[in-house]
């Protein structure tokens, strides 16, 4: 078994109208090269799940700017330069499902763990819980939230082996391990491929069972640095 692939091949399976989870919190952990491969692939009508809504004109912002995203599920569609999303949103060209960050997180985790619904105190009594079922447990009120799953997840890792065992780099871990579990097909870009067995079994954060395709991207672009340089994709 060898899950290594080329980015263009791996993203070529993403179809029009697919739901795609994209890892990262802001620029940390964002799989820029995979997103750009998806832009090259040219697929349309995507629903994207990400914590944010892109920054500048690269990565997720570029995917939105190319008109490939119909709906965004996120917690915080603001950034240093959120104009691409903001303009489209205010023009009614993109739908937004705003989800509290911890609820977004837990919905993704639930999707990966086979938990179709759960109760959380988060959002109870607020506009973001409107229309959702509620229930009382031990005298406190909670909101019922549903799992989130995706057709594809695109994530960024640090080390990977051919089976898809992964580690991450510092705070770039964020959404990547949980999104890896919640998609039918998970594509990872890893900064360094290593031999099977080279990652200590104690240090593997994502076991390969969750991974379908591994792409080595040795010197990945960093969204923050691209934006400081005024980069635009494509």
């Amino acid at each position, binding site marked *: 078994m060898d899950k290594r692939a080329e980015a263009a091949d791996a993203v070529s399976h993403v179809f029009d109208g697919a739901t795609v989870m994209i890892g990262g919190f802001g620029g940390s952990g964002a799989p820029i090269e995979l997103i750009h491969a998806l832009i090259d692939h040219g697929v349309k009508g995507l629903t994207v799940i990400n914590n944010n809504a892109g920054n500048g004109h690269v990565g997720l912002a570029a995917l939105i700017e190319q008109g490939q995203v119909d709906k965004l599920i996120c917690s915080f569609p603001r950034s240093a330069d959120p104009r691409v999303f903001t303009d489209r949103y205010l023009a009614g060209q993109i739908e937004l499902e705003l989800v509290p960050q911890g609820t977004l997180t837990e919905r993704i985790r639930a999707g990966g763990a*086979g*938990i179709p619904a759960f109760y959380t105190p988060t959002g109870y009594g607020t506009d973001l819980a409107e229309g959702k079922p509620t229930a009382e447990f031990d005298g406190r009120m909670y909101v019922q939230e549903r799992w989130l799953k995706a057709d594809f997840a695109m994530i960024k890792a640090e080390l990977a082996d051919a089976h898809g065992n992964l580690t991450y780099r510092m705070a770039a871990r964020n959404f990547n391990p949980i999104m890896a579990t*919640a998609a039918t097909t998970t594509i990872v870009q890893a900064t360094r491929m290593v031999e099977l*067995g080279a990652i200590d079994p104690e240090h593997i954060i994502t076991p390969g069972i969750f991974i379908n395709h591994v792409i080595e991207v040795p010197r990945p672009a960093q969204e923050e640095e691209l934006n400081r340089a005024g980069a635009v994709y494509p």
Partner: protein
Amino acid sequence: MTEISKIKLSNAQIAWRAAQDIPDGAYVNLGIGFPEMVARFQPDGRQAIFHTENGVLDFGPAPEPGREDWDLINAGKKAITVRPGTAFFHHADSFAMVRGGHLDVAILGAYQVAQTGDLANWSTGRGGVPAVGGAMDLVHGAKRVAVLTDHVTKSGAPKLVDRCTLPLTGLGCVTRVYTSLAVVDVEEGHFLLREKIPTITLDALQQVTGAPLHAEGQVAELVAPEDLA
């Protein structure tokens, strides 16, 4: 009955047959006991990746006696080994793999399998101390849930039945049954006979089966090597 006990496959042969259906790179959980035998019979060139629900993926075979490390065990609490690719994780992550549908196959034992796919494999209903472990979790989530079993009980009663009479492990969960006499799929509420051993007639097989055996076209011959250890 006497006749059947002479012609039926051994447990090793049943396990061998189940192993033939596991593709290279499949993620597989083998239930405690008899199903664990499946790991021995992987065809050449194929390497399944085994999951044990206490928190290890891609582990190796049992160590030499005397070389056991009791912090490195499987769900049956038998010593295992690491190999290149092994990963450790905690129980919640482990059952997320199970419940979340990430296993390709779970292979379990059974007291009874109903034609609806219902499985009874955790309790004989006879009192004593009940114990369930991960059985009820494993039957939900894996893409295929296969059962290995003798075709009949020790007293000759069918184990493939119309409805389970023993306490259920799960509803409508079994997809394929490998028995000592046949390979049977569960499809849309009935048993679909895929293979039978050549030395039993369809009628005789039906007689020891507690629900109708359907067939689509040819029923293949179920033949396993004789010399399995």
